[in-house]
């Protein structure tokens, strides 16, 4: 078992990216390069055509640099760090809905996510 370096913290990122082969690989590979651990990852197609949204929790010492370098990827449309208190596990589904994840909406109508 490996242990995370002492100065890492958990950060929650929401990444809007093209729904294409390789896009996820590029984004996640960038985090691996820094030897940061991805502790949670949810990804799915959005209601918009051809894009997907990814919610990931990463244990990182320098999340700013990760955000900058993710933003630089051609297949990444936007990156947002969401405040840590919003990122508790029980709130993930809510975050998914807020970030337009129709697949995760418990409602029968994916266009009308429950609040």
């Amino acid at each position, binding site marked *: 078992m490996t242990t995370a370096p002492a100065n890492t913290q958990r950060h929650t990122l929401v990444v809007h990216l093209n729904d294409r082969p390789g896009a996820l690989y590029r984004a996640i*590979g960038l985090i691996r390069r820094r030897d940061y651990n991805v502790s949670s990852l949810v990804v799915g197609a959005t209601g918009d055509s051809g894009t997907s949204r990814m919610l990931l929790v990463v244990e990182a010492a320098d999340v700013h640099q990760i955000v900058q370098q993710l933003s630089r990827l051609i297949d990444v449309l936007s990156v947002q760090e969401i405040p840590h208190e919003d990122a508790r596990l029980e709130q993930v589904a809510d975050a998914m809905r807020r970030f337009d994840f129709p697949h995760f909406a418990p409602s029968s109508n994916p266009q009308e996510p429950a609040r």
Partner: protein
Amino acid sequence: MSATPNPDLRTGAQILCEALVRQGVDVIFGIPGGAIMPFYHALPEYSEQLHHVLCRHEQGAGHAAEGYARASGRVGVCVATSGPGATNLVTPIADAWMDSSPMVAITGQVSSALLGTDAFQETDIVGITVPITKHSYLVRDPREIPRVIAEAFYLASTGRPGPVLVDVTKDAQQASIVPDWNVTLDLAGYDDHRQCEVNAGAVREAAALLASSSRPLILVGNGVIQSGASAELLALAEYTGIPVITTLHGLGSFPQDHPLSLGMPGMHGWVHVNRAIQRCDVLLNVGSRFDDRVTGKASTFAPHAAVIHVDVDPSEIGKLVPVRVGIVGDARAALRALKSALEELPTRNADATGAEFENRSAWLEEVHALRDKFEPRQAYRRRTDDGTLQPNDVCAALNAARRARGNCRVVTDVGQHQMWTAQLLDWHRPRSHITSGGSGTMGFAVPAALGAAIALPDETIWVVVGDGGFQMTNQEIATMAQEGLTNVKIAIVNNGYLGMVRQWQQLFEGRRYSGTPLSGPDFAKLAEAYGVCGVTVDSVDQVEQAIDDAWNYPGVVVLDFRVEREANVFPIVPQGRSIGEMLVDAHTHTTPSVVAAYAERP
């Protein structure tokens, strides 16, 4: 009944060729193989527009494409087959990534039905190159080729340039379709940061900082050369009277004989330049990324400076050095905007005589006093009595010959000779100095010179290379011979060691020369075997004549300079130390006991 074939049908391979022609490509560097054979089958139809240079190793093809790009400013193109052909391109792709060279690499891939089956010569080259490409494509449908090639060239050449990989399956090359050239680039997630105006607020803030500073410095790198901003740099420096320092990749962006030119900073930079950085109060960095070879230990870099960083890549700003003002944008636009903002400042002194801002002349005097005290190049001027050929003799003679004959391009490899050449030649013109910087790829020089020589057939391309790097890729001399090139002249600084590693072993590891003594063939005879001219030079008084003769000779020449074996590059900042702590040496080949260290004053 038989159907008449549609005359507009084209194979994917033909479409690929035509797409390259439509991008203005005239030269491609490559080697064929099974999965790229359909492309090579189509190539002769386009031989009027596309000249194919058959390299001897795909690494050579990749570095040649880089050399072509760096010399000309256009996108370099290399082609390889799947599997080992593609993996041999990995090193030059990484090199182009680190040095932001515009490159499109085209690889054949096994047929799409075989993807992921460990087919013969199948390698996941898209997966392998993800961390070292700006973007990459796996093309399985010939209909995608027009758009993908248009995007690949746009991405490679705009914003912060870099390598783009296009992996095309064999069946996509073989299938016939009617191509649609009305393509729309699908790049919603890409911003090249060049079309937009630079942030006016940040520019005003930067201008105010510069105007109020008493010890300002301008640090410039590759970005100034890539954006063609030398004239704007000169205008800003002269308007403000601020001295300019140029990184390894910035050499040539600012004329070295200009009174405001200080020289190169960093690990093998001049003492006065590093001292100036440690003393300055405002540091304007344009198009350089604070590489560790420039900053030394980053936390001790420029301790008194408010840093202004201009970069076309927003992820570089604040990456390594804390920044007071970040300006995202093209170097040329930013330099113009900065000068305009300075001109509009109300506090401007009316006396427009160069050093027109307050206290600026005192700073210039201080910097010039440092330069006089530490006297750059002095270590290399002193001679031993025995007349041994020193590496700096080669650089001095090449510099003198270049001064007499006008300009030429100089391509260097990686190691001691690279630093001597950077230190000891005068650099006046952008794109005249081509080297492997960020990646530090030994074996870069000979194939990169091949690419530069093809890009610039009317210019002389000098290669300065060590005997170690030369032995990694000298097979591309055969390519030069096949191409009938006459404008490449190769100077091997041959000391029989992997010299830079040996120098570190001498200075920091008690002369434990592990794995560094290096033998080699008779390079002059090797050159002759390749069908080019080879000459061995082993005394000082032959150097000038040898360079002159090589320059006049109507063909490729290899000069094997047998130099002092244990000459060293000075000054040197030990790895991981502050640039305020340099080791200097009175003689270039003495033992470490006489190496003097001094620390920056607090």
